């Protein structure tokens, strides 16, 4: 049963899958609701742990009581439907998925990216307002920009303008401080 998000009244089937938006009969809020075939699919749970395990059928590596359904594309172990993880049309067991997550090998399972480009950029720009801090943050931004240049920035961002700016600005700040040190030392030595 589909209900209106605003008033909670149930919506009839004529109000879903329309071309344009329609109005809720109770609260008159315009909406579009698209229902897809997956909504009517049901989960089959006929293969519980106590299901009769056929003699000729292999068991799951992790759940010996359950029949195997697919083979892990990573390690080749037989796994059941509970253990199977579907990634880019390939089936993996939890151990292989965990390995991929640790090594960030597959873009399909990356849940988050630390934005080193943003950190380096802020590290280079923000301390300009408190300029003595650039003695530390300038080199830090430059090193961070170089260190993480080859790492993927994000799943949806390909360019590295922030990293380039961080390296440039951090490098200039470092150069400035080095020049200052050289000038001061030269003055002292004279």
């Amino acid at each position, binding site marked *: 049963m*589909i209900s209106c*998000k*605003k008033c909670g009244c149930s919506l009839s089937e004529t109000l879903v899958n329309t071309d*344009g*938006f329609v109005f809720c009969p109770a609260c008159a*809020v*315009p*909406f*579009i*609701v*698209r*229902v*897809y075939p*997956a*909504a009517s*699919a*049901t*989960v*089959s749970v*006929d*293969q519980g742990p106590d299901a009769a395990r056929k003699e000729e059928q292999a068991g799951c*590596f*992790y*759940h010996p009581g359950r029949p195997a*359904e*697919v*083979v*892990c*594309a*990573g*390690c080749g*172990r*037989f796994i059941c*439907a509970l*253990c*199977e993880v*579907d990634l880019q*049309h390939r*089936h993996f067991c*939890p*151990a*292989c998925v*965990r*390995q991929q997550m640790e090594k960030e*090998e597959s*873009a*399909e399972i990356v*849940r*988050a*990216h*630390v*934005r080193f480009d*943003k*950190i380096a950029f802020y590290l280079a720009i923000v301390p300009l307002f408190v300029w003595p801090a650039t003695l530390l943050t300038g080199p830090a931004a430059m090193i961070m920009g170089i260190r993480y240049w080859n790492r*993927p920035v*994000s*799943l*949806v*961002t*390909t360019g590295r303008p922030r990293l380039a700016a961080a390296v440039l600005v951090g490098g200039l700040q470092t150069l400035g401080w080095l020049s200052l040190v050289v000038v001061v030392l030269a003055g002292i030595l004279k």
Partner: protein
Amino acid sequence: MKACSRYRFLSRNFPVFPLQRVSLWLGDDHLLYTRHGAAEDRYRRFYFKDLQRISVYRTPRAFLQTGLLALFLASVLLGALISGHTGWRVFWAMTGCLFAWWLVRSAAGGHSCACWVKTAVGETRVRAPARMRQAEQMLKRIQPLIERAQTSHAVETETGATDREVPLDAASPSPLDKDKVLATPADDSWPHRESPPRPELLP
């Protein structure tokens, strides 16, 4: 890590709550909902074969926002009129231009909306299509992809027999499909072939 440029942009938004830029991207077989934090991007994937429902409701937010901006603009223009100094007038005029640009942009965007995506796991509020027009365009764009993904999955479910072999690169059965069969791993591209240590038994 695979190439990262395979996502196509769908929509973005910068909601006041949570104060975090969000965007929606179109992948090969899924939607990628991204929350851009100050130092971290967080992703959520909605696979086409798992999408059960997408609901888009019109909200009054854009109307309120436009009204508020018009009020600000009027205040700024009033400030420009009553200020005697030329410097202040220039300041108020520049501020007014900023608000005017924002107002036009807000008014031209059309009605705002709230979008929910439902899968078997649950229903999630997706904040990326902020306007009805964007949401309608997004729905038009992803509709054939979802239908194709779910139709091919349904056909596979109907024709699936327990004694046939399914190649690993074929369309994958969804978690709902229990007519899966044993398949032989034939892909040698996997970087580590040795068996990983056996983890703890799952409950």
